[in-house]
């Protein structure tokens, strides 16, 4: 049975935002892949990305079919499935760039650590929705979320993919802070986190340490990350107010920039479209995030509310870490920019996320018997 109200309440605004950002993304990607290529042929990665975007929209529509409240019921199943995938990465995974992150299913290469973000958000929303209160959570109530969070964190850091692992912690931390902790708990946890820093540091791989040190002191690795950051800054800065124009970015064309179609893609936008182009993108992202918060705020179901908040937090952290890194505000970590960076797993994960947001948004009409939970 398809409720007509679902159409009526469909969140066209958010879809339009996603669509616009996606189109901007394809435009930048086209430039990043075409510039400096004399043949002028459309790059194979561009075509691939179009396919991924299309697949992402399909996945989004599939997500819309399921009532988000059903996710509450199957949260442990989804969570266990993703953990299973992460474990099979350790066993069967493909090695790329020194770490084992990918799983080959048929001819599709997926990165289970990306999907894990969504699964964790669903599980945390499910747990917190039962115990949220104005007084805040005490330690006992934090045990289950902590376990839920640390298992995938351990598996992902082991790959090793510290960037995604930390992103997972940031998302989980944001949700936890949002649902409110007891004041005492908050202080103690902050203390523990501070104390854990040296411990965590000693557990890092040497290249991970050197990345963080390079951030703190770019002179440490002038031929690697330090050079990337310098070139990235030159690319961004040289865009000035209005940019050099579409396909005219020289930094990009001369392939001075490494990874310019994945993690560093915003520097291509900055070089070719200048401050104006960047401001528009930032504004669009800002609206998307507020839109997400609004959905969370208006949801009458606590699970849905926290879920929407979690998805918004995920998108927020991806944007902040990526742009911050490219502009030299953060260490170089491989976090893709939502809807813009090239990469199948990232596109699908974000589309799933947006699908859930739309899902919550459109099923948020006034209580109907069918949707009231005991």
């Amino acid at each position, binding site marked *: 049975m398809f409720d007509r109200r679902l159409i009526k309440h469909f969140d066209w605004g958010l879809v339009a935002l996603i669509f616009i950002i996606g189109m901007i993304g394809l435009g930048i990607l086209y430039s990043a892949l075409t510039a400096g290529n004399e043949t002028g042929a459309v790059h194979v990665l561009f075509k691939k990305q179009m396919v991924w975007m299309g697949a992402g929209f399909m996945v989004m529509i599939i997500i819309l079919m399921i009532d988000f409240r059903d996710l509450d019921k199957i949260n442990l199943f989804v969570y266990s499935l993703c953990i299973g995938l992460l474990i099979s990465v350790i066993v069967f995974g493909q090695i790329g760039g020194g770490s084992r992150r990918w799983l080959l299913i048929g001819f599709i290469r997926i990165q289970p650590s990306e999907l894990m973000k969504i699964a964790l958000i669903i599980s945390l929303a499910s747990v917190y929705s039962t115990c949220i209160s104005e007084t805040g959570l005490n330690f006992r109530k934090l045990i289950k979320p902590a376990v839920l969070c640390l298992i995938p964190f351990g598996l992902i850091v082991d790959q090793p993919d510290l960037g995604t692992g930390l992103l997972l912690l940031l998302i989980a931390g944001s949700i936890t802070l*949002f649902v409110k902790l007891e004041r005492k708990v908050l202080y103690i946890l902050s203390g523990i986190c501070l104390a854990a820093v040296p411990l965590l540091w000693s557990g890092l791989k040497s290249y991970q340490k050197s990345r963080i040190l390079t951030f703190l002191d770019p002179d440490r690795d002038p031929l690697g990350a330090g050079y990337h950051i310098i070139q990235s800054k030159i690319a*961004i800065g040289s865009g000035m107010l209005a940019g050099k124009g579409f396909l005219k970015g020289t930094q990009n064309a001369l392939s001075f920039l490494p990874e310019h179609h994945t993690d560093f893609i915003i520097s291509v936008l900055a070089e070719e479209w200048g401050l104006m182009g960047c401001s528009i993108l930032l504004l669009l992202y800002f609206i998307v995030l507020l839109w997400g918060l609004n959905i969370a*705020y208006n949801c009458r179901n606590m699970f849905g509310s926290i879920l929407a908040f979690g998805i918004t937090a995920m998108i927020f952290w991806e944007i902040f870490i990526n742009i911050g890194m490219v502009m030299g505000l953060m260490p170089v970590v491989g976090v893709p920019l939502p809807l813009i960076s090239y990469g199948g797993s990232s596109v699908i994960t974000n589309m799933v996320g947006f699908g859930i947001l739309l899902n919550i948004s459109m099923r948020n009409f006034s209580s109907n018997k069918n949707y009231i939970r005991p």
Partner: protein
Amino acid sequence: MTEFSKNQDKEWIKQRFIGVSVCILFVFALLFLRLVYLQIIKGEEYRLLSEKNAVRLKSIQSSRGLIFDRNQKLLVDNRPSFNLKIVLEDAGDVKETVEKLAQFIQEPYQELMDYIAQAKNGAIYDPITLKKDISRDQLAIVEAHKFDLPGILIDIEPTRYYIYKKTAAHLLGYLGQINSKELKTGKYPNVRSGDSIGRYGIEKQFEGYLQGKRGGRQIEVDASGRTIKVLKTVEPVAGFDLNLTLDLDLQQAAEKLLEDRDGAVVAMDPNNGDILVMVSHPSFDQNDFIGGISQEKWAELISDPGKPMINKTIQAEYPPASTYKIITTLAALEENCININTTAYCPGFLEYGNRTYRCWNKYGHGNVNVTEGLSQSCDVFYYQAGIKAGVDKLAKYAMGCGLGKVTGILLENEKDGLIPTSAWKKKRYKESWQGGETLSVAIGQGYNLVTPLQMAVLIAAVGNGGTLYRPRIVKTIKDGSGLVIKKNESEITGGLPASKETLDIVRNGLLKVVQDERGTAKRIRLKDVEIAGKTGTAQVYNLKKEDKRGAEAKEVKYSLRDHAWFVCYAPAKNPVIAISVMVEHGEHGSSAAAPIAAALIAQYIQEPANKKVLPE
């Protein structure tokens, strides 16, 4: 689960949402301000840098590890070379610039352009090497016309230098430029296109240690690519130095003794397997390979009938000839086919089947026992011993002595040699083993093949009392400050399959080869040191003995002449050196090969340092 009416109704939840929104606003404001700072405040500066493509990475080559001999004498060094490069991005009109350059340095214009064409797929700001190792005159003229040659730059980079031309070339090896296929394998993370990697010998086998790690500079350049200032530098890390077991003086002496004859000489320390000498003749000049060997030179090397590109000590297989009688003796004694008192009568031949098998001495040796059989190399004695033992027993002992398989030296493409068995023949030729073939095998003339290194390991083991060592070529690996990174311990691979009594009989026979008046190598006797050894003369082509013995020998075509073997150790009691000499087409082990060994022993023992060398 609690269904609740509206978030809006709960003041505390509302406040949390407001708080979060403020946080997001704050972060976005931060990102925006950062953009303003980079694009507006610093924008002009960055635009200039980007237009000039002014900030570049310049790689600094690391200096390759040095190679020393056992006495700290430098064998392989690095010297500075001036390499001419071009950066297309800065060159303006490339053709015009290269034309001018070609005139200045008097090199063919087309050749220079070819290098550019080959490197076309690189980024246009990456320097392309036009000519490596230019002369002082060329350097001076390019420097003088620096401003007429935009985009042309001169890099001073270390280049390999093999100090002693042709010395131990096969052991040390040489370098060659890495190709794109090898780069793609990912085995050389520190190597870039245009770099050289070890292609042969130790240079190849120890590439990982010798290579070092590239450094680099972040530099700011002007419009024609000249460095304005160095922004940051990462110093390269030099490769590790190798200390070989090789004795340079002895090596050079051996090379001199071989003169222009083809062949191989290996000398080992029988007490630990250290390779003291490794000569393969003819040799080649490794310096020719630096910066790419010319077509003519390569063609010359490849077509040389002496096969200079083969390391004959490990890659050439020869019939062991009479040196194999050591194995036959071991096998026959251990299998109780003969004992110390067994004698055979040698009339100069043996009738077996329908054939007559000749002894090398057509007048015969008369009655000989095992000691005399060995020292006089009586073929008839070994025909009989071989018949008694049988081919498969002989093979068992040969393999037990390390023949028929690689010695395990850390060099590439070592050959196994061949020890025939009846089963092997069945498989290879689909024919049964013939009794007469055992006779040939017993004197080392059948299908048997060995490498000079295998024989050195074997004779060293006989000398040291039965221990087979894995030949060691690199003793220690050190970093630039002399800190030992790796120490290669000597390694025992097995023991000779023989009792002490058997070995004593063999050793006594070998001693008599040199020290007895009737020994085959009596002419090489030294005054103050006893040598124990075995001669061998390997038939290359089965001429009728009458045709090639005696005065006519000189007239036999060079390529059909016999190979000469001599394997030995000295001093006979507590040996400090074991030697295997193979002179191709040298005809007689006693006259062509043995004197080389004797001269090396004389030189080695005389060195005061080695007099004191005692078994470990």
